[in-house]
C-alpha cells in the first residue's frame, strides 16, 4: 500500500510542472493585448507601456515563465494588476467561499443522488425507478443559469425568504451565511446529484446481479445488510471517483452559478480576470485549483483503499 501511495505522490510534482506549462502557455494564446484590455477606454501610450513593462510583455515567453515560476516556488503568485492586490491574498479570500459552496453542493448531490440511485437500482423497473430517472433527467437537462434565476425570482423576489444573491462570511452571521448559500448550493448540487444518481444506479445494478450478493441473500441475510454492507460498499468505488472529480471541478469555480448569485468565489474571479486579461490572477487561481484537483484525486486513491480491502494488498 505504501509503495502505491509513494508512487502516486511521486507523480504529483511532475504533473504540477506540466500543468504550470499548460496554464502559462494557453494563456499566451488568448487573443488581444492584455495591456490594452487593462487600459480599457484610456489609451495613454505611456500608461500602456508601463503595464506592458510590469507584465514583462516585451520579454520572451520562456523568461516570463521563469519569472512566474520563481515567484511561485517562493509562495508569490504575483499581483493583480487590476486591483493591485497580491494574487495569494485573493486566493485566500476566495478559497473559503468556494470550499463552502463546493462542500454544500456536494452534500446536496450526495444526499439526493446516492439514495435515489440506490433506490432506483433496488426497485429496478418499478415506478420508483422511473420516477428517479425522470428527476435525474431533469437535473441534467436544466441549465444552472436558468434554474438560478428562477429560484431567485421565486424565493427572493416573490416569497422574500432568501437573499437574492451575495455572500455573507460565517463570521458575520452563520444564519445569513447559510441563507445566502442555500440556493447556489442547490443549483450546483442538483446537476451533480443527477450524475451521481445515474452512476450509483448502474454500479448498484451491476453489483446486485453478482454471485456474492446472491450468496448473501441465499444465506438469509436481511436485505438491508445485503445492500448496505455487501452491495453498496463495492458499488461505491466508481461513485467515489466521480465524487472526487466533481468536487475538484467545483473547486475550480462554478462560473455560471457564481455569476448568477454574485458569489465571490474562484469562478467569478477567474472569469473576470480572463476578460480583463489580469494574467497573474488567471495563472495563480488556475494553478491553485489544478493543485487542489490533483490532491483530491490522490485522496480518492486513498479512499479506494479504505473501502476496498483488495486494493490494500
Amino acid at each position, binding site marked *: 500500500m505504501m509503495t502505491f501511495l509513494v508512487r502516486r505522490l511521486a507523480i504529483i510534482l511532475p504533473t504540477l510542472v506540466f500543468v504550470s506549462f499548460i496554464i502559462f502557455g494557453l494563456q499566451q494564446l488568448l487573443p*488581444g493585448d492584455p495591456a490594452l484590455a487593462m487600459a480599457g477606454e484610456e489609451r495613454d501610450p505611456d500608461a500602456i507601456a508601463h503595464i506592458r513593462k510590469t507584465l514583462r510583455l516585451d520579454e520572451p515567453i520562456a523568461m516570463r515563465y521563469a519569472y512566474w515560476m520563481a515567484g511561485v516556488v517562493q509562495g508569490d503568485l504575483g499581483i*493583480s494588476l487590476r486591483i493591485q492586490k497580491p494574487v495569494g491574498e485573493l486566493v485566500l479570500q476566495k478559497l473559503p467561499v468556494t470550499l463552502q459552496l463546493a462542500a454544500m453542493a456536494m452534500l446536496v448531490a450526495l444526499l439526493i443522488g446516492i439514495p435515489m440511485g440506490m433506490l432506483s437500482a433496488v426497485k429496478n423497473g418499478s415506478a420508483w425507478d422511473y420516477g428517479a430517472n425522470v428527476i435525474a433527467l431533469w437535473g441534467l437537462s436544466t441549465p444552472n443559469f436558468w434554474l438560478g434565476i428562477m429560484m431567485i*425570482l421565486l424565493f427572493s423576489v416573490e416569497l422574500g425568504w432568501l437573499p437574492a444573491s451575495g455572500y455573507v462570511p460565517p463570521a458575520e452571521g452563520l444564519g445569513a451565511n447559510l441563507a445566502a448559500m442555500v440556493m447556489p448550493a442547490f443549483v450546483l448540487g442538483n446537476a451533480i446529484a443527477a450524475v451521481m444518481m445515474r452512476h450509483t444506479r448502474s454500479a448498484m445494478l451491476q453489483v446486485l446481479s453478482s454471485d456474492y450478493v446472491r450468496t448473501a441473500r441465499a444465506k438469509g441475510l436481511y436485505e438491508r445488510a445485503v445492500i448496505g454492507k455487501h452491495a453498496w460498499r463495492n458499488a461505491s468505488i466508481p461513485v467515489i471517483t466521480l465524487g472526487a472529480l466533481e468536487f475538484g471541478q467545483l473547486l475550480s469555480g462554478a462560473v455560471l452559478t457564481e455569476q*448568477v448569485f454574485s458569489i*465571490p468565489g474562484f469562478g467569478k474571479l477567474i472569469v473576470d480576470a480572463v476578460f480583463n486579461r489580469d494574467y497573474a490572477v488567471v495563472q495563480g487561481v488556475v494553478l491553485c485549483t489544478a493543485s487542489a484537483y490533483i490532491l483530491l484525486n490522490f485522496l480518492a486513491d486513498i479512499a479506494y483503499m479504505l473501502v476496498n480491502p483488495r486494493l490494500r494488498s
Partner: protein
Amino acid sequence: MNKTLTAGALALALLAGVGAAPAQTLRIGLAEDPDILDPTLARTFVGRIVFSALCDKLIDITPDLKLVPRLATEWNWSADEKSLTVKLRPDVLFHDGEKLDAAAAKYSLERHLTLPGSFRRAEIRGIKAIEVLDPLTFRIDLEAPFAPLVAQLTDRAGMMVSPKAARAMGDKFGTAPVCTGPFKFVERVAQDRIVLERFEQYWEKDKIHLQRIEYRPIIDNTVRLANLKSGQLDFIERVAATDLDDVRKDRRFKLSSIVELGYQGITINMGNGARAKGPMGNPKVREALELSLDRQALIQVVFNGEFEVGNQWISPGNAAYNKAIPVPKRDVAKARALLREAGHPNPTIEFMVATTGEAQQVAQVIQSMTKEAGFDLKIRATEFASSLKLAEQGDFEIYYLGWSGRTDPDGNLVQFITCGSPNNNSGHCNQEVEKLILASRSTNDLAKRREAWHAIARVTLTDRPIVYLFHRKWFWAYANKVSGLVEYPDGLVRVHGLKVN
C-alpha cells in the same frame, strides 16, 4: 404541513435577515466591479461612481454641465491663458486627519503626472509646473493654453489624495484610499463589496445624511434588479432598457434617468492599415452607410425607444451641439445611388461587434437596414478585449463601439479624430481639423470654442470616421425610501443630499 412550511420560511427569513440593513445605510448595486480605487491609476467608469463618495474633486459640474466649486473655491486664468490660479477651501481634512492645503494639492497633481502607470497624465499632460503661492493658493503653469484642463479637474484628475497616505502606500494606495470625500474607505472584498463610512470631519457634512454605503457589483441585469426587488439593495445603476416597464409598474420603486455624456457609434476604418483600402475607404460608401440607417427605428427595436438618437459626439441637448447639422433622415434610394457612383453597388463589409447581447442586436438591425441599400454586412462577434486590439491594429472595416463621455466636448472628440492619436482607430487625419482642434483648445472663451467645434463637425461629419448613432440614458432604480437623488449626465451617483428614510 402548512404550518411547518410557514415556520420554516420564517426561520429562513430570520436567519437570513432578509433586507436588513442599519438605518441610513445605502446599498448600491453596480453593473461592474471597479478596478483599483486610486484616482491616478483608475480606468473604469464604475470606479468613478465609488470615487464620487470617496474622493472630492477640485471642481464639479452641475446637471447642465456648468462648473461649480468644490475643493477649489475659485480658479482664474492668466491673461495669456497659460496659467491657472486655484484657491482652496480652508476647512478641508483628509480621512487620515491631514489638512488639505496648496502643498497637498500640488502633491496630488504631481502624482498624477509622475506616478508610473498613471492614466491621468494624458489628461493634464500640458502642465509644466505647479507652484504654491500661499497655504491655500497654487498656480498651474501650462506649456501652451489648454482649455479642457478645468474640465479635467472635475473628474479623477481633480481628486486630491492624502500625501502622507500616498507616500506610505505607493502604488498600493488604491487598496486603502485616503481622500477628502464625504465617505471614508472601510473595506473591499474583490467582486463582492466595497464599504464606505461617513467621514465625520467632512467640510460639508450637513449635506450628508447617510451613515454607510455598500457598493455591490452584480453584473447580470436581471439579478441586479431581483436584488432590488427582494430588498437586498436599495439602489441600482444602469437598469436595462428592457426592464424599465417592469420597474415603472412597480409602485415600490422610483426610476430616474438622464441622457449620457457619451455616445454609441460605428467607427469606420478609413485610414488605419491595409483594410482601410476596401470599400469603406471611399467617402461615398461611408455616406451611403449612414443614409441607409434609421436611428429611431434602431432604438425602438433594440431599446424600446428609451434612448436618444444622435449624429454628433455630443447629444442634441448639449449646448455645443451643431444644430445646423441635424440627425440625417434615412434615404435608401440615395444610399443605393451613392454605392453605384462609388463603384461598389453591393459591398461586402465586415462588421466587428462585441459579444454582448445588446451589441449583437444592434448589429443585426443595422445589418438588415443596410441590406436594403445594397450592403452585405458580415457580423464578426469578437470578445471585447480582443476587439480593442484588432481595432488598434486596423484589422477591421467597421466597428460598433461606444464612449462613456466627458464633461468637455473635447474629451469626446479629439482623441478619436486627431492624426496618430492612440484612440483614433479609424485612422482619420485631416489638417483642417487639426488646426480647428488647436483653435478650440487654445482659448477659454466658450463662444470661440463652440465655433471651432461647429466647424469641426462640418468637416468630420462629412469625413465620417465615426457614424454616431445614439446616446444612451443612465437609468437608476431605487426603493421609495431613498430620496434626494440628483441626476447628472456623467452617470455618477453623487451622495450629497441622498437619504434613506
